[in-house]
């Protein structure tokens, strides 16, 4: 067992250090993690140092009796939530998608040993979060309140509890969830929820940073009254906060009581999760659960087939087949949508928030509003269509050789895929861009201009994305984000910027028509330019992407 653990650790280290590139990547990651840890430490130290005079009564303001505790508990709640989500994902992959499980189960190990091994793996995967977020936060608190040196070993012990408790709870939750929902659906739902959490956190940090910037200690303390989620005494975050506060005040008995309580509950969760996983191994082995059924509703498909037969416009042929297949693959996999959603929210926050932060669209000159909205529409199109188009070739996965053995050219493949990407995206894209335009204050016929602009630029954008995706596709990638290499991704940025610049020239000409004597002609030229650029982007993307597909051997190793 020890040998196995050592081998696992060796393999993990080898993955980080196997090549010069990997070593550089690891060094960069370590540096970034170090910088993040320093930032967390600094932020917590600053926060607790700032509120300390208020808490100790040095400043005469109404103070909540347990303000410090509630504040710490709220921070721990966030930390526990992050660890729970990452722990759940890690537990799912360790118990369902791990390639070594069949080998381990067939080897002379007990289920308890395998569980212990997997638990160690999970805890190790959580360790970076604890070292980068939790420990610096606790140390920052200690430094902020001026705790004695004995606080810091106690903070280290508490960090270990942070490692133990969420991992056990995550395994427990995972074992329970997989009983109810088929694992492949859990994977999709997990990806969706994880992305939503990421979106919320991103929006919170982006919008919240300016919101909280003007706050003073009094506001922070008064906030503790409203943090009702951090007050329940049955919350593990509250116990850990109690233990931290006790450690900072040098109260050993309180520290042992609250820390011990957390440890006992963690152990209980661990035992329960072990029993559930053990039972799952013996009855419906969790690793084999990928064979869960998912029935398509026959009556509905029968109706669709019947309708299709009756349809006057019977759209058949390789292009439509490819487009239909692409649409099904995107629409039936939440992970595809979530990546696009994440980019979309990011782009909306980046483009809309600055305007809102300055007090809405009133500060935007009315003559510029349309052009700002066109820019926002372009950015949103890029965010929603870009990820889907960029990964469209690699989305084939290892079926790629199957597809390439059919009598279909690379250009046909790309056209079908672009159709399949653009079709399901257009309606939500239009809705979001129009909503964003309305939010920025755009009204009347100019909304139609924005909608037309979106319809014009989106196919070209998708084609350019698909072309860039053909440059370095990874057909073996499990993660949606890893389907294309970094160079292709950067290239897509460059190509998108060039496309945006070309479109901006057209928009400039259209706008220029308003203040020159050649009003109609210049506007017409501008419009023509926009149409040419939109069509050209589509043609260039399809032709170059098609050539790239034909140039490459279609073997997936």
């Amino acid at each position: 067992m020890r040998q196995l653990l050592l081998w696992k650790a060796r393999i993990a280290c080898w993955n980080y250090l196997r090549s010069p590139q990997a070593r550089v990547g690891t060094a960069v990651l370590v540096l970034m993690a170090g910088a993040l840890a320093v930032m967390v430490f600094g932020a917590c130290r600053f926060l607790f140092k700032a509120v300390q005079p208020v808490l100790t009564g040095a400043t005469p303001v109404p103070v909540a009796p347990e303000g410090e505790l509630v504040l710490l508990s709220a921070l721990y709640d966030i930390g526990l939530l992050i660890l729970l989500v990452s722990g759940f994902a890690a537990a799912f992959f360790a118990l369902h998608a791990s390639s070594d499980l069949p080998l381990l189960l067939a080897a002379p190990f007990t289920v308890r040993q395998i569980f212990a091994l997997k638990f160690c793996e999970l805890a190790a995967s959580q360790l970076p979060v604890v070292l980068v977020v939790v420990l610096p936060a606790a140390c920052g608190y200690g430094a902020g309140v001026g705790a004695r040196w004995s606080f810091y070993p106690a903070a280290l012990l508490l960090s270990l509890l942070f490692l133990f408790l969420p991992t056990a709870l995550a395994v427990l939750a995972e074992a329970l969830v997989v009983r109810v929902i088929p694992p492949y659906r859990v994977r999709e739902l997990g990806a969706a929820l994880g992305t939503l959490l990421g979106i919320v956190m991103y929006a919170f940090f982006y919008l919240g940073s300016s919101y909280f910037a003007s706050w003073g200690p009094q506001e922070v303390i008064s906030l503790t009254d409203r943090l009702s989620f951090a007050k329940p005494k049955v919350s593990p975050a509250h116990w850990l906060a109690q233990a931290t506060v006790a450690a900072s005040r040098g109260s050993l008995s309180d520290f042992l009581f609250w820390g011990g309580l957390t440890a006992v509950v963690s152990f209980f969760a661990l035992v329960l999760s072990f029993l559930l996983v053990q039972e799952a191994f013996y009855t419906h082995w969790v690793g084999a659960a990928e064979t869960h059924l998912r029935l398509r509703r026959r009556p509905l498909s029968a109706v669709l087939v019947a309708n299709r037969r009756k349809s006057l416009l019977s759209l058949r042929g390789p292009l439509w087949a490819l487009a239909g297949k692409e649409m099904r693959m995107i629409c039936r996999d939440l992970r595809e949508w979530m990546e696009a959603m994440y980019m979309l929210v990011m782009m909306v926050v980046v483009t809309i928030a600055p305007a809102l932060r300055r007090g809405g669209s009133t500060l935007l000159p009315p003559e510029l509003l349309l052009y700002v909205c066109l820019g926002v529409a372009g950015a949103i199109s890029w965010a929603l269509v870009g990820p889907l188009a960029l990964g469209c070739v690699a989305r084939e996965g290892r079926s790629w050789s199957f597809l390439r053995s059919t009598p279909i050219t690379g250009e046909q493949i790309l056209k079908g895929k672009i159709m399949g990407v653009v079709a399901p995206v257009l309606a939500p894209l239009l809705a979001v861009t129009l909503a964003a335009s309305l939010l920025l204050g755009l009204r009347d016929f100019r909304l139609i201009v924005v909608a037309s602009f979106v319809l014009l630029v989106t196919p070209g954008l998708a084609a350019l994305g698909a072309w860039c995706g053909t440059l370095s596709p990874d057909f073996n990638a499990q993660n949606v984000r890893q389907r294309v290499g970094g160079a292709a991704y950067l290239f897509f940025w460059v190509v998108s910027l060039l496309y945006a610049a070309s479109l901006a020239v057209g928009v400039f000409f259209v706008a220029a028509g308003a203040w020159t004597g050649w009003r109609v002609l210049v506007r017409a030229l501008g419009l023509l330019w926009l149409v040419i650029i939109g069509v050209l982007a589509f043609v260039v993307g399809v032709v170059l992407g098609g050539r790239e597909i034909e140039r490459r051997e279609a073997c997936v190793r």
Partner: protein
Amino acid sequence: MIKTERLTKRFGRFTAVDGLDLEVVPGEIFGFLGPNGAGKTTTIRMLTGLLRPTAGCAFIGGYDIHAEPLRAKAILGYVPDEPFLYEKLTGREFLSFMADLYRVDEKRRIDRVAELLHLFGLEERADELVQSYSRGMRQKLAVAAALVHDPSVLILDEPLTGLDPRSARILKDTLRMLAGRGVTVFMSTHIMEIAERICNRVGIIDRGRLIACGTIDELKGLSQKDMASLEDLFLQLTGGTAYAEVVRSLEEGDLP
């Protein structure tokens, strides 16, 4: 028909296939045998246009697969060594999709898909996503997909892997029936018994070179032993007789 002329594939310094000359005529089932890593799958990938040969050329139905890939692929059915199919399509959708790629007309497509689903016993689960299929079911679906457009050349890479006895029997009978109709069948396999039973001719490849080719009787004639089986001959030609030493060592407990 299938024809290769000095077909060669090199990966860097390693030569996977070395000057392969082959001809498989219509109505023939050709068994392509060889030890692991001999170059079988590389040859098949070149025949299907997935890999570009370093030298030489391959013809499918008279069309050079690399000069006229669309014409060649239109008459070709291919079953890959691993049945990686679209997980998010149902079995029925997958077959319809493949039929559309080969431009099978709608009336024929609906009948053909239903026929193949019935033939391979996939009817009951035809409306489930492929991701819920077992390996054997995926293999059956891959074989069905290769047959959906009535190809005149069929190339199968280890087609019987993962199939249950009933499906294996159906596939063997189907291949014989197709060969009877004039379809050219090129099949790689590790199972000597199958090669002996259903193949008209057999080619043995080792380290990228075709070391023997002919009917089963012709090949048996090459053997040094009387009444040798195809398996004995295969081991004799590919140097696999060394296995006897290993077995003896295992018996005597000499191995560490």
